[in-house]
Every structure is written in structure tokens, then in C-alpha cells.
């Protein structure tokens, strides 16, 4: 396999355009890749899996009041198995305190990174694709309550 210049892959590949509210049983959004991000994904897909470095799905500033919730976070779509790919689970312990207003401003909320390096080929089968994200609470969220993820992004860390 040809050597690819992985040091040219940018650290931020893609980002969500808007905040993602999580209500009811599930929520979906897509993360759009930048032109450099698409080139970076093409380089990563061309590289040997063992030398790719790490790819992360980053969820920032999740705010809400439902601490006793666990979110299942899925990315992409496995056509063969007709299922979404599980990036990981996220228990929201401490969410309410982290979301409390302070001097008129909301708290920072919770942040979480999921290592999706192993899912790259399935989640982003070609460099022009967007990364779809699906978030499923462990139980349906009651109607007046909602969780909001302010920002989602895909970040890359090169191999050491």
C-alpha cells in the first residue's frame, strides 16, 4: 500500500451546523466535512488501518437536567447488517450541575469524545460523505424535558 502523508490530515475534519436537541426516543443529525476534511478522509481511507491514527467523534456542551440518562451514540450505517454503528455509550452523571446557570449564562455542560477509528471505513465509506449521527436515550425522554448537544465535530489525531 502506498505511503500517504497523514501529517497533512487536518485536526478538525468536520463540524455540525446547528445544535442537536435530543427529545423523545432518538435524534439524528449529520456532520459536514470541510474540503480539507474530505481530502483528509480520503488519505485515511487509503492508509493502512494500523497506521491511520485516531479519529474521534466529539460532542460538546451537552446541557439538560436528566442526569439519570444513558445515551447510545451511533454513527454511519452498516448496509450489510442494516444497522447503525455503535460509537459508544454516555452516562450523563453530573449533567444538571454542569448545566446550571451562572450569572445569567448557562453552564458549560458535559463534553465527550468517542473513538471511532475502527468505524471509519463503514461510517465514512467515501470521502465525499457526511457523517450521520444518531443518539438514542436508554428510555424515552419525558416531553417537557430535553437535552441539547451544542456542537458535534469529527477530530483527528495523527499516530505518534
Amino acid at each position, binding site marked *: 500500500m502506498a505511503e500517504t502523508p497523514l501529517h497533512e490530515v487536518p485536526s478538525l475534519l468536520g463540524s455540525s451546523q446547528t445544535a442537536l436537541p435530543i427529545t423523545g426516543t432518538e435524534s439524528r443529525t449529520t456532520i459536514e466535512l470541510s474540503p480539507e476534511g474530505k481530502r483528509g478522509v480520503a488519505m485515511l481511507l487509503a492508509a493502512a488501518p494500523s497506521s491511520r491514527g485516531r479519529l474521534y467523534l466529539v460532542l460538546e456542551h451537552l446541557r439538560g437536567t436528566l442526569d439519570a440518562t444513558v445515551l447510545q451514540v451511533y454513527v454511519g450505517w452498516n448496509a450489510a447488517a442494516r444497522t447503525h454503528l455503535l460509537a459508544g455509550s454516555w452516562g450523563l452523571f453530573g449533567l444538571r450541575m454542569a448545566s446550571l446557570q451562572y450569572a445569567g449564562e448557562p453552564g*458549560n455542560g458535559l463534553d465527550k469524545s468517542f473513538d471511532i477509528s475502527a468505524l471509519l471505513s463503514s461510517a465514512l465509506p467515501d470521502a465525499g460523505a457526511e457523517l450521520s449521527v444518531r443518539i438514542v436515550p436508554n428510555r424515552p425522554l419525558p416531553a417537557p424535558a430535553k437535552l441539547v448537544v451544542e456542537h458535534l465535530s469529527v477530530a483527528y489525531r495523527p499516530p505518534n
Partner: protein
Amino acid sequence: MATSYQNDLRLRTAVFTLSLVAWLVMLWPGPAAPAGANNPGYHTVTYCGSAGAFPVSYALPGPALPTATAVPALTWGWASGWGVMLVAMMLPTLVPPLSHVYSRSFVQRRAQAIGLFLVGYGTVWLGVGVLLLALQALAQYAAPNVYLRVAGAVLLALGWQVSPLKQRCLNRGHRHPALAAFGWRAEWDALRLGLEHGAWCAASCWALMLLPLLLPYGHVWAMALVGLLMFCERLDPPAQPAWRWRGFKTAIGYGRLRLLGARSNSYSLLAQR
């Protein structure tokens, strides 16, 4: 999300190098100031651009203290000098927000985003600089006695340093909101972060920044100490607002670490067993 170690190191190196260059520019000896009431006879440097109008002496106090320090006129020269002073003193405190902007921006927008952040931050501090000059003039009018004026400035700076309000401002400075990555919102978010961070930074530091302006001598030494204190108090995590000493312990620890190296502690002693 954090920048990778190499990117972080590159950013820190650039920031501290720029700050060092700005310090060297400020310390560069200017022409000897003419003899007069405000002239202690030492070589002075100016950061106002108009030589002699705003002498910033780095000499230690001499026997004869002037009764007043000339308040500089608001000129482009003053603004550029104020900018150099900001780079020297404040740039090292901006590593966390700069790292935040760096890591949240796409490669092709990164320089623009960092530039807009700095423009917003600098604009706020330029306005605050004008207010500090007004305070300097007011202090000289209200307290012609230099000892009284300096004592008042020291008390004011210490009072603000230990106040809960200062902790509130520092806490807000630690806040890094999400930044949009696409479109005009990316530029606006970077500029807004610069304005917000500048406002909270100025609100937490104004009293410390006023202190060197009111000293008759030793401005640069005072600026260096104040700069170190401001850098170190930002190394402390956000805390509950309360009356307490803040920054000094970290500054002493930081200075000791840099000058004497890491102390052997129980952990290292355990490791040697």
C-alpha cells in the same frame, strides 16, 4: 477536544516568543530623558511613541521622587506602544482561548479566526487603556502626593485581587463557548469570543494594570511582576467566588519551579525505593 501535543507546543512557543520579543522592545533603552521634574536621570524606554511623554523607567527607585508622571496623549504612538505592552503582558495569558480557537477552526479559516479573536480582544483592551489613562490623570489630580497615590493604588489592587468579584471575572474568562465552523458565524463567533474574553480579562485585571501606571519609577519591574501574577492566577481552576488571596501562591510556586526546578516530594521518594 484538545489540540495535539505538537500543535499545542507550536502555539505555546509562538505565543511566548512573541511575548519575549515585546518585552525586549519595551526594555530597549531609549534616549536619555531630558533633565526636569519627571526625569530621574536614568535611561528610560517609552511605549507611547512620543519620547519623554510617558517615561517607563526600569530603574529602581532613586532618592528624589517626582510628584507626577506625565499622562500621555492619545496618539497612534501611544496605541502602538499600548499594543506592544499588551503583547508582552497579556499574550501568555491567552494560550487557552487561542488553543480553543485553533482546535475549533478548519485549517483554511484558522488564521482568520485567530486574527479576529485577537482583534476583538485588542479592541477591548484599547478602550480599557483609555479608561486607565483617565484614571491615572484623575489619581494625579486627586492625590498630588506620590506616596499617597501609590499607597492608594496598591490598596486598590490588593482589594480587587482578593475580592469575590474578581473571582467571578476569572471564572467567566475560563468559559470557552462552542464556535461555529462554517460561514459568517465562524468569523462572528471568533470575534465575539475575543470581545467577551477581553471584557472579562480587563474586568479582572484593571486594578493590577493601573498600578504600574501610577508608580513614579520601576514601571517595567512592576509590569513584569503584575504580568507574572496575571499569568499565574489564570493557571488556577475556576473557584467559588469568595474573599481570598489568589494568584500569589501559584506565582511563587511557578517562579520557584522555573528558578529552582521541581522539588523532590513524597512521590519521587517513593519512586526511588
